[in-house]
């Protein structure tokens, strides 16, 4: 027998919910005998769904960074902050570890995620055999870091709740924060619909 022995070559399905190994049946809508989750050889419409979600995320990444995420109103002025200007404020106030944390979580992570998923999608679609191990690792990293981009959304919502002192200042949430939340949700869903087994399905030439 040539090539690696895979679940597909032996007619075995893996339940992604409870990790049961199931003999593939020829019925179209089979369910896991153990936990009753729907079983598929590969996630259905994986490349299409991931592409659509990723396009949505990439489009919303622009307003998330350009629109103000919050607006600080005091007697004397009205100050709009984007994510980046918020990072600069943190830097100027001397708390550079937090500034770095917010910068990485809010600006670097979403961008890396979108680019990485784009590369994974393209190479999976082409069936490229190159650097599979690295791409597989890249995907697990994308899955792991996904949630961290919510960091600034939480910070902003807490600020908006706390800073509502009539005689002093109030913080109004901006649409940038909304776009930010949407980017996090869309990239997380894109990672979930992507079937990483597609990276390994094409024959390797070695």
């Amino acid at each position, binding site marked *: 027998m040539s090539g690696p022995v895979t679940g597909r070559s032996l007619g075995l399905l893996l339940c*992604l919910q409870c990790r049961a*190994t199931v003999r593939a049946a020829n019925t179209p809508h089979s369910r896991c005998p153990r*936990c009753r989750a729907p079983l598929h050889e590969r996630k259905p419409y994986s490349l299409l769904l991931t592409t659509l979600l990723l396009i949505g995320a990439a489009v919303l990444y622009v307003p998330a960074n350009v629109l103000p995420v919050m607006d600080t109103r005091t007697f004397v002025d009205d100050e709009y902050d984007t994510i980046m200007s918020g990072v600069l404020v943190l830097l100027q106030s001397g708390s550079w570890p937090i500034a770095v*944390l917010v910068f990485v979580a809010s600006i670097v992570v979403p961008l890396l995620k979108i680019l990485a998923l784009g590369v994974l999608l393209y190479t999976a679609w082409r069936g490229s055999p190159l650097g599979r191990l690295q791409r*597989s690792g890249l995907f697990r990293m994308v899955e792991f870091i996904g949630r961290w981009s919510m960091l600034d959304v939480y910070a902003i919502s807490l600020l908006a709740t706390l800073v509502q002192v009539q005689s002093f200042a109030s913080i109004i949430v901006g649409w940038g924060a909304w776009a930010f939340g949407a980017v996090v949700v869309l990239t997380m869903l894109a990672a979930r619909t992507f079937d990483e087994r597609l990276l390994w399905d094409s024959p390797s030439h070695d």
Partner: protein
Amino acid sequence: MSPLVVCPACDLVHRNTAAPARGATLCARCRAPLQRASGAHIDTAIALAACALVLLLLSNAYPLVEMQVNGNSRDTTLIGAALGLYAQSYYSLAALVFLTTVVAPLLQIAALLYVLIPLRRGRRAAGQEAVFRLLMKVRPWSFMEVFMLGALAALVRLSNFAHIVTGVSLWACVLLMLCLSELTTVSSPEQIWRWIERSRA
């Protein structure tokens, strides 16, 4: 135990061996975790879940932080983050924050307790399979650790112009975060089904 185990990340088939007591075995081809640890006792998971439930209630009952400025003071609990967004008419964003900081942790804890407590006495909860699938659906959306760092970033920003008093909830939240992360580790999907199958025998 099935004689074969299939890698969830690359579909390679391996001969099934006993899962390790700690950590995980890795797929020979793609290095993804293949079999996760099997050491945990069901009581450990129940205790962690009960503990997390108490901490979650505390986090919502008492203030996380209090801000004092010019003689005025305001405080907020864990749920306050979502309520603040709701008050400013960002309903969908408020729902997302509510889901990831309150609903998902609560459902995660409740679903585990619902399945595990009857198992301990050798019984099966009604609708056990559906509750298990619900657990798998909500787990990735429980963001306590991200919320904690977000709260830290908010406090640093506020401390420049207001006096901040940390509340009892802040510590409850830190413990909740640790509890939930440990709970997720001990109750891997494979482990939950090992407990279920053991009670059946």
